[in-house]
């Protein structure tokens, strides 16, 4: 008999950064969990949420609390490697199954290896499973967007010394080889620390290299500093395609005019042609419902937080004893379902062998922020080369 039908509630642990700099990722948590618990599938679950305070120490600590004190059956986690990695490491050590998302798989997988520089030593996990996209998808989407413009193919890279930046900037496993294969050359001056107040060194290097495209994975305040300084210094690339910094509409709005036509990868949007298995809502309905209930614009993490609970419900529907960690882990590995963010199945598709068991990929497209007459911004999908099922709504435009 499936676990779901057995009366006693299944305990899900959820670690999210409700306070601190990553709090934007957790913005929809309350909404998502309420919606999930109100659904038919959700009735069988109890969700225990812990705040990581955007602090990796704290994330590991509350993960352990969830496991030891609350005796959860399954851990769910998202919101950047800073949050997913300590939680996944703890779960793996504790032998508790964990499903994680909202972090590119390289920083998630490689970032949890003892020596990230030595691929020979990398090992898979028994209890930790991750679904999201990877840098190869970023490369495909970004180059797809850039190819729509006529450029000289010289790309400027801004990568900080953090989990994302190191993964993206890695000369062997990062963006560089992939971009080269697609005919783009990357200028990477080196890892900077987050919250730098000056980017003149980078701008000078980019100008010297004649870069016409800017890319990177930059936190919002740093991108604003960089972007303003770049314009002041007369560095005017044709495209700026960056991750993280312009993820949230609020961050783009802080850029004002200068935000127009900045581009980024899009992992989920209101126009994704997928449906929730839990509430039956389409992406558009989910986004609209969130906005109606919270009064705030939809953001990309909403779909993914929602999908975490879809996966949980699906997995638990296929195990007879939710406390049997091995069985739950096996059920996760056997998942094959269509969520509101696309297909989730740990079948190894598109993932290198070393990570095939633990990583599953969801579709990725590219979008551009277009400033509306009213001052707000729309995210317009302009590139869908790797995920043609997601429709585009426009063409890539060069920056003014």
């Amino acid at each position, binding site marked *: 008999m499936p676990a779901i039908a057995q009366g006693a509630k299944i305990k899900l642990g959820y670690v999210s950064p409700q306070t601190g700099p990553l709090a934007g990722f957790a913005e929809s948590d309350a909404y998502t969990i309420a919606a999930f618990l109100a659904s038919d599938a959700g009735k069988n679950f109890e969700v225990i949420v812990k*705040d990581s305070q955007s602090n990796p120490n704290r994330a590991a600590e509350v993960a352990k609390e969830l496991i030891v004190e609350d005796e959860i059956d399954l851990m769910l986690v998202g919101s950047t490697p800073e949050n997913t*990695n300590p939680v996944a*490491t703890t779960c793996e050590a504790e032998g508790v199954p964990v499903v994680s998302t909202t972090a590119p798989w390289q920083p998630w997988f490689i970032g949890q290896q003892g020596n*990230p520089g030595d691929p020979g030593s990398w090992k898979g996990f028994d209890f930790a499973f991750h679904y999201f996209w990877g840098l190869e998808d970023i490369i495909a989407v970004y180059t797809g967007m850039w190819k729509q413009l006529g450029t000289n193919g010289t790309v400027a890279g801004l990568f900080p010394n953090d989990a994302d930046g190191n993964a993206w900037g890695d000369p062997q496993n990062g963006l560089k080889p992939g971009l080269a294969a697609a005919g783009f050359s990357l200028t990477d001056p080196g890892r900077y*620390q987050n919250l730098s107040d000056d980017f003149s060194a980078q701008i000078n290097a980019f100008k010297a290299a004649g870069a016409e495209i800017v890319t990177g994975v930059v936190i919002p305040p740093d991108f604003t500093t960089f972007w303003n300084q770049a314009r002041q210094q007369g560095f005017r690339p044709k495209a700026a395609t960056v991750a993280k910094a312009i993820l949230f509409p609020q961050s783009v709005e802080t850029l004002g005019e200068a935000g127009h036509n900045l581009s980024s990868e899009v992992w989920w949007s209101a126009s994704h042609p997928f449906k929730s298995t839990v509430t039956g809502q389409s992406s558009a309905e989910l986004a609209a419902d969130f906005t109606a209930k919270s009064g705030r614009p939809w953001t990309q993490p909403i779909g993914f937080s929602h999908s975490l609970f879809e996966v949980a419900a699906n997995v638990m529907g296929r195990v007879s004893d939710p406390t049997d960690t091995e069985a739950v882990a096996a059920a996760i590995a056997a998942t094959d379902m269509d969520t509101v963010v696309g297909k989730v199945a740990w079948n190894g598709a598109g993932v290198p062998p070393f990570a095939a068991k633990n990583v599953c990929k969801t579709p990725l497209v590219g979008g551009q922020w277009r400033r509306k007459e009213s001052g707000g911004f729309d995210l317009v999908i302009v590139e869908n080369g790797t995920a043609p099922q997601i429709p585009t709504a426009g063409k890539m435009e060069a920056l003014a």
Partner: protein
Amino acid sequence: MYRLTTSTRAGRITGAAAVVLALALVALPAVAPRALIQDLFTILTLLTLAQLWNLLAGYGGLVSVGQQAFVGIGAYALFAGVILLGWNPVAAILLGGLAALVLAVPTAFFAFRLQGAYFAIGTWVIAEVTRLLVAQWKTLGGGTGTSLPREATSAILGTDLVRALFGVREAAARDIVAYWLALALAVAVIAGIYWLLRNRLGLALAAVRDNPEAAGAVGVDVRRLKWAVFLIASAATGLVGALVFMQTARISPNAAFAVTDWTAYVIFIVVIGGIGTVEGPILGVIVFYVLRSALADYGTWYLMTLGVVAIAVMLFAPKGLWGSISARGNLHLFPIRRRLVGPKIEGGI
């Protein structure tokens, strides 16, 4: 005819109680649920850090805001020992202490040139520099950080024994080993500090705290004293850092060198509890932990409360909670007063 004693009734009772308590804590894993062991691990490591910081600031007058440097370097040394040298994590904890000791030498050399607020900020900057340098250490993940390999954590010394002993899962057995290590460290540090205070060094520290000029005039070597206290406290802080991150199994520069976690909260504990006493940090860590357990699920409100409590205690009990208690009842659980006993002596404590 005359002799010296530090023994008091309260002290003897405390001593006996402490021994009983320590023994009970050693045996606790046999009966306690994992959650309690887990909580106690956190409490014990925080308590140890607090006692060490108290030794520095409360007894040595060295108000350091950079102790996270030693937590961090100790933790990283453990990871290096395990990942790069293939040591057993328990052995690598010692490496953590050693690394912190080594770092403490240049830190002291530099920071001892500074006084008061300058010293505080100087140590903070040194910790930042250490963090930034460690973040360049690519083999241990640079700014990304790294995790302890699964086979290393499961190979932790003593885990098998505990599994056999208590019949628990591997993860629980590991918790118990870590808890015992934390307990041993806490007991050793508290007993060590108490022993130090009852020793010549304690007299010298009290003398310097009261009047540095006069201390020099009776032959106390103030410089050497500061060095000794700083090196001891730093090395032990490194041990705690290594132990904490062995248990977390994941490290990153921002986590290991977090000024809030490893210094600010520790200062909070010491000052709220009562600086310059052995009892203060014990009381402080209890208050801190109660606050955290009760409120941590309220996110921002928890931290706001913490901030307000810090302000309120400083305004209304500037000597900390233990300071207020002991001033009223003249109670010292860990007496360090040396009394002269013999004929013709009256009064006294």
